[in-house]
């Protein structure tokens, strides 16, 4: 199955190959993540993958579709991995299971399966869970917390109590809360000096996870699985709005670099808004899609009530993708002027 527009120069771009490469590209990020919080993230990846495959098989069976062909395309695994990477690593097991079921059953198969879903399933799962379980979805382990695998497993399976060390905020959330509590008295430079939470550029440790995603994303681009338009426009949108506000008031708005390396910015830029199904397909459309998603993500994460804004920004832009695609149809080769 091909998704690229003509002239089909790409060779062997079957869905399963694309999905495998996307999974491979996630590995640098996952490695940094596992180094940061321990093996819990691997446990969550396994839980999400198993749930996704089971849900996918059940839905395909219900819909009377060939199991082997659709199961082996790997799209469910990519969705599952994105869910595991965006959920808190020590979340109880049922949270990831609920999110994955919601993504596969409601966001993917009720809309007609792979290629028909108007929304990115992983982002639907994130939005549904953060709206439904706001407390559990914002409990991130404090950085530097060293827990052996067995203890982490116990927390995930609900066998051990959820202690305070597990209920930190993300660096983004911590900064927003501190600024709100400070009521204009606290400035960013002062906050960033706290080396428990913040590192050289952004959240301590988390910045390297973001760099891992960046490496994977650049590899995907180099292998021509994604084009540069959407990620660059997304980063551009976020840098533009955060840069303007930062120059205007550096004491209460963090630098663009902080925002690039925090939260889901780079994961979103390379792995989520480049989704060929729910995103735009025309080059100009991808630019508009990415730019607006970057702006919205910044606005929601800085001025909104949720810890991060990437998921909601992507969902809002998914809604507008068909319209953008229609308005940015490229000129047909051999035709003159506008076709409309």
């Amino acid at each position, binding site marked *: 199955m091909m998704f690229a527009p003509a002239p089909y120069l790409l060779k062997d771009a079957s869905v399963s190959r694309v999905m495998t490469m996307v999974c491979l590209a996630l590995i640098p990020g996952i490695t940094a993540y596992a180094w940061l919080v321990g093996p819990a993230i691997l446990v969550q990846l396994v839980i999400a993958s198993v749930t996704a495959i089971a849900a996918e098989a059940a839905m395909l069976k219900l819909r009377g579709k060939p199991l082997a062909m659709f199961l082996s395309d790997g799209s469910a695994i990519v969705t599952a991995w994105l869910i595991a990477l965006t959920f808190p690593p020590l979340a109880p097991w049922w949270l990831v299971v*609920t999110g994955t079921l919601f993504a596969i059953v*409601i966001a993917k198969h009720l809309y007609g399966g792979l290629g028909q879903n108007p929304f990115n399933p992983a982002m639907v799962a994130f939005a*549904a869970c953060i*709206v*439904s*379980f*706001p407390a*559990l979805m914002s409990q991130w382990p404090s950085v530097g917390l060293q827990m052996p695998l067995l203890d982490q497993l116990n927390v995930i399976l609900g066998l051990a109590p959820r202690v305070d060390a597990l209920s930190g905020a993300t660096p983004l959330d911590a900064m927003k809360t501190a600024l709100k509590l400070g009521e204009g008295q606290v400035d960013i430079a002062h906050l960033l000096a706290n080396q428990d939470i913040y590192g050289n550029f952004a959240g301590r440790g988390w910045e390297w996870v973001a760099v891992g995603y960046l490496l994977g994303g650049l590899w995907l681009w180099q292998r021509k699985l994604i084009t540069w338009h959407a990620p660059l426009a997304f980063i551009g949108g976020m840098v533009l709005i955060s840069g303007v506000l930062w120059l205007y008031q550096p004491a209460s708005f963090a630098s663009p670099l902080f925002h690039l390396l925090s939260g889901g910015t780079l994961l979103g830029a390379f792995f989520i808004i480049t989704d060929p199904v729910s995103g735009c397909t025309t080059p100009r459309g991808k630019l508009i899609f990415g730019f607006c998603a970057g702006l919205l993500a910044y606005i929601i994460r800085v001025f909104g009530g949720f810890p991060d804004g990437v998921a909601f920004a992507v969902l809002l832009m998914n809604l507008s993708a068909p319209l953008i695609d229609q308005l940015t149809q490229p000129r047909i080769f051999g035709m003159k002027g506008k076709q409309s």
Partner: protein
Amino acid sequence: MTRDEFSTIAYNGLWKQNTALAQLLGLCPLLAVSTNIVNGVMLALATIIVMALANVAVAMLRNLIPHEIRIPVFILIVAALVTVVDLLFNAQLHELYVVLGIFIPLIVTNCIVLARVEAFAAKNPPLNSTVDGIFMGLGLLWTLAVLGAMRELLGSGTLFSGIDMVFPSLSPIQVLPADYPGFLLGLLPPGAFILLGCMIAWKNWMDARAAERAKRRPPTPEAIADTAEAGA
């Protein structure tokens, strides 16, 4: 009214033209109030009273109402009846009245009421109209009850919460264990949309299955004679 007419009206109200699942009318109160069974059922009961009385009133006055200004007249009749129900709830079930809030007065603008008055009561005798109002309301009632039960169960793990506002001697049932975290989406409007969508899909699936079965059943001799006649 013949038996046939009665069963047609009842079948239309309860299933075929179900206000929520087929006509998709009055979605605003439907989605806002169906957070639990008690709220949903009580609002549906209020709507049934209004619909039955409005249908009788309009059916009796239908030959006196000038065609050109019929809509304002219908609205006046409905508004008068809603005021009665509103005051009744305020006096008898005050706690529930506070919970349902604006949605009782809003029955005036509920398209179901106006739609039945315009589409049925204005063209039919009073008795048929009453039955139509009651059964359309009952269709709404069971839909709201099922939707409310699903949302309540998903969102908070209970059933019949708030029943003590109607019957002080009864108390809600805790179906799921007390430490159930509550899937909040069920209680929020998006959850109501998703669950209503599932119910509509279920109704369409049941209808499709029934149609399939009817097609597979061997045709009766009369039907064969009919088609032969039509062919000739």
